[in-house]
């Protein structure tokens, strides 16, 4: 689905007006620990998170995340929005919690991009 469509499903407020909304989101990942995101996420995902600091955007940039949704109406500080704007990553704030957001997006056909932890015997 496109970011635009995702925005409707999560009833999100766009915090980065210039960011592109026509990109394709192929799956989702919900996490508050950035290494968990980096460990499991595939490219072109939407990241649902409660974490608002600048590292969320850095993580998204490294992992080629297409959009970030902040849960429970959280609004990140200006420096987070500024970096996301520079990096062209759309930031959305949704009134819903993580559980409901995952449910809504999964129901709309978005797959999970979260992979289990691989141990040494992978």
């Amino acid at each position: 689905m496109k970011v635009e469509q995702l925005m409707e499903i999560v009833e999100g407020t766009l915090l980065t007006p210039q960011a592109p909304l026509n990109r394709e989101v192929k799956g989702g990942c919900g996490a508050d620990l950035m290494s968990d995101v980096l460990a499991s996420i595939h490219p072109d995902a939407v990241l649902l998170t409660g974490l608002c600091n600048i590292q969320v955007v850095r993580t998204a940039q490294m992992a080629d995340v297409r959009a970030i949704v902040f849960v429970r109406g959280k609004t990140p500080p200006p420096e987070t929005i500024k970096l996301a704007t520079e990096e062209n990553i759309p930031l959305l704030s949704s009134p819903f919690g993580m559980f409901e957001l995952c449910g809504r997006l999964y129901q709309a056909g978005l797959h999970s991009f979260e992979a289990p932890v691989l141990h040494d015997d992978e």
Partner: protein
Amino acid sequence: MMNNPPHPNARRGRTVTDQDAREISRVEELSYELKVGEVMTANVKSVTAEMKIAGVLEILRQGRISGVPVLDAGGEIIGILSIEDVVRAMERNHLTAPVSEYMSHRLITVSDFDSVVKAIKTFSEYRVGRLPVLNEQGKLTGIITKGDVTRGILNALQKDYKEEELRRYRASHLFEDITSDRTSLILRYEIAAKDYQRGGEASSHIKRALLRLGASPQLARQCGIAIYEAEINLIIHTDNGGVIRVQIEPHRILMQTTDTGPGIANIEQALTPGWSTATQEARNMGFGAGMGLVNIRRCVNRMELDSTPGKGTKLTMEILLRPEERFREEGDPEAE
């Protein structure tokens, strides 16, 4: 902090970001750099004072233009007739009148060597939509409209963009253009301890550099994730920060971080998924999942972790490029 409204300086509902500011100032620069002669429409149609309005109407319609200069027999400009003047004549059912009766005699002109900003100022000062352009000898060389200005600036911006593309192209041929027995590019970054705010900046530069050099998005992502985890480790765990060194060669990427302590007491444990010694401060920032080194190992072909408690840690990460991923070297066949 967390609940700050997102747009404290909202102007017309949105914040002017740094990127906007850069673009706006580039447009401003261009309006000083560009000359009227570069953006004006040359070879303009002109009419004489004796022509009938009806004839001009036809010229405007065919040329899809909104005004023409009026020249005398010697080719000097004596006025300008705009579509508004034609409309006035039409309202009075007076299309057979000569141009001289309806044309504007007030001559506001610009020179072809004036900067575009002069034209913009003249448009707003005299509330006109088009200006005849004269050369140094005072002869008409063209007409400039607001549309010409917009097109001219957009074209110049487009040219800027092409130059950026060209730079990217040149960077991607770096290894081809330089002849040596062994070429490598070394990037070095100093990372401060506990500087969470700037955390990831170096990694972001590294990822971007790789993309510029022509790395595939997958390769850049793989290196980016590994080095980001390593950079965050320097920030969270070291006493005095550390150094990132990335060596890019046509066939491999070698990334290293070194620091001066405290060192890792139990490497075995440090490599266990989920095991972390991160402080509460780091955890609040979203780190300390205990997945950092595990992630790195997954992203690289070889990972070595040397650490001596009290002395420091050296982390080596090597990614060997598959033949199709290699940066092209001098003498490689041109074909992909």
